[in-house]
């Protein structure tokens, strides 16, 4: 008895090593990418200096940072425009994706009839569809929204449909036995069961709606007037203003990263009490 107890306190070498490794890994997960990032930026700076690369081809990181500060008003204003399109289209993608998925699970026939159209919409490159949208839709915001929505709604639709359909058979029998209505089954069983799938789709859709918004602006910017980050990039490209181009680019990536992190957090918080995917991170 006493032997096992003292063992529980004083770890044997193997367990101690495992614990040490786990601790190192936790630190390394943050430290390593950060170090590499800093190194890469330093190397970028050195390459510019060593090769005497002119600013309009490759600006030094410091200059990009300065531009980000100097042009803050312009760039963040544009960021807001892009963000508005991104979030509006993400919201519409959620509504449209979940709504369609619910409709699909109400009737196999509806799903069979309409799912192929969703796939067609998904696999056709948005850049190719845009000229059509450009002809038929007048309002600039509506154009961009439609574009970003087409890109973003599919993962939500297909994931949620899968989730709504992968309900435990016995649980469905249980609901039937208790005389549950279709609506009750949807609300108390299918929707909660689809939650992990939906959140997985949402994580993908978040990034896609940003991409959709930027791509839409790009294509629209070529033909019309727009004030989002993409048009800042096009503009800076024409004027060979590489520092601003880089600054805008960095803003877009950062936005994408933030969206991903926020959605991951949302997903973790929503599932942490019951779903396996959220439990792993506790250990």
């Amino acid at each position, binding site marked *: 008895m006493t032997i096992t107890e003292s063992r529980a306190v004083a770890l044997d070498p193997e367990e101690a090593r495992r614990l040490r490794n786990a601790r190192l890994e936790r630190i390394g997960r943050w430290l390593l990418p950060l170090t590499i990032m800093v190194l890469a930026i330093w190397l970028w700076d050195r390459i510019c200096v060593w090769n005497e690369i002119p600013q309009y081809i490759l600006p030094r990181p410091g200059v990009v940072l300065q531009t980000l500060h100097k042009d803050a008003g312009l760039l963040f204003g544009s960021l807001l425009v892009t963000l508005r399109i991104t979030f509006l289209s993400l919201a519409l993608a959620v509504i449209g994706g979940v709504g369609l998925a619910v409709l699909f699970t109400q009737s196999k026939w509806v799903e069979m009839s309409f799912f192929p159209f969703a796939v067609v919409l998904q696999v056709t490159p948005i850049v190719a569809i845009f000229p059509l949208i450009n002809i038929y839709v007048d309002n600039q915001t509506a154009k961009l929204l439609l574009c970003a929505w087409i890109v973003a709604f599919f993962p939500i639709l297909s994931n949620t449909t899968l989730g709504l359909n992968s309900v*435990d058979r*016995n*649980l469905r*029998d*249980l*609901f*039937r*036995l*208790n*005389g*549950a209505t279709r609506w*009750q089954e949807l609300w*108390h*069983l299918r929707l*909660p069961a689809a*939650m992990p799938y939906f959140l997985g789709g949402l994580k993908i859709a978040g990034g896609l709606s940003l991409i959709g918004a930027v791509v839409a602006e790009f294509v629209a910017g070529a033909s019309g007037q727009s004030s989002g980050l993409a048009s800042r990039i096009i503009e800076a490209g024409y004027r060979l203003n590489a520092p601003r181009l880089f600054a805008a680019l960095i803003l877009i990536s950062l936005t994408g990263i933030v969206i991903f992190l926020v959605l991951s957090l949302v997903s973790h918080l929503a599932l942490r*009490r*019951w*779903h396996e995917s959220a*439990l792993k991170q506790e250990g």
Partner: protein
Amino acid sequence: MNEGAPLLVMDGVGKTFSNGVTALDDVNLTIGEGDFLSLLGPSGCGKSTALRLIAGLSVPTRGRLDWRKEMGDDCVGFVFQEPTLLPWASVFDNVWLPLRLRGVSRAKAAPAVHELLERVHLSGFENAVPRELSGGMKMRVSIARGLVTKPRVLLMDEPFAALDEITRFKLNNDLLELWQDERFTVVFVTHSVFESVFLSNRIVVMAARPGRVHEEIAIDAPYPRDEAFRTSPGYAALCRQASDVLVLAINSTHGAAA
């Protein structure tokens, strides 16, 4: 109360699935009020199919199931082999579910839910979610959920098969206690001779291919049955008797298959 009067009469019931498998053939069975009836038989002999027919989850291909007239539509509770709980819902919400689906509010359901949770020794776990419970505890929640609507018949499909022996004995005792207090009727599917003898007053031994009733054994040992009964010579003798019948049933299956 008309004790022992038939609650359900199964008359020449058969079930053939669309893939051509005849899971049940010509089953004649009478379930009396207050019975603890076990369906015992080898794997694939149609025990689950029979239970689903009784629950109304599936309809017979041949024959009829006649319920006693005054029985309503939802007089059955069902306990599955796995706990089959809603993983995102608390213990309370899981037990409340059948009532909730009938439009009973949380406040109205609370007394019944709490009482049942106490009966299955889970007071204090109302707010836990299933993954925070052990296998045995989950099964208790499942039993509480099956009983919360005060069903006349509780149908159980190998409810304890996945549990260890100690937990199973404990749950057997608790189930018997509940059954004696509440006087509902139980149809209990099991693979285990020992379990069926310990629990039931009637064992229906089934044979496979096609699934049918091979023989019925009456277990006359008086209730309450406790740990002393489990070690008594009478229990051992009954187990031997039931196991002999089961062997015959399995052999008759082999004969039919050959």
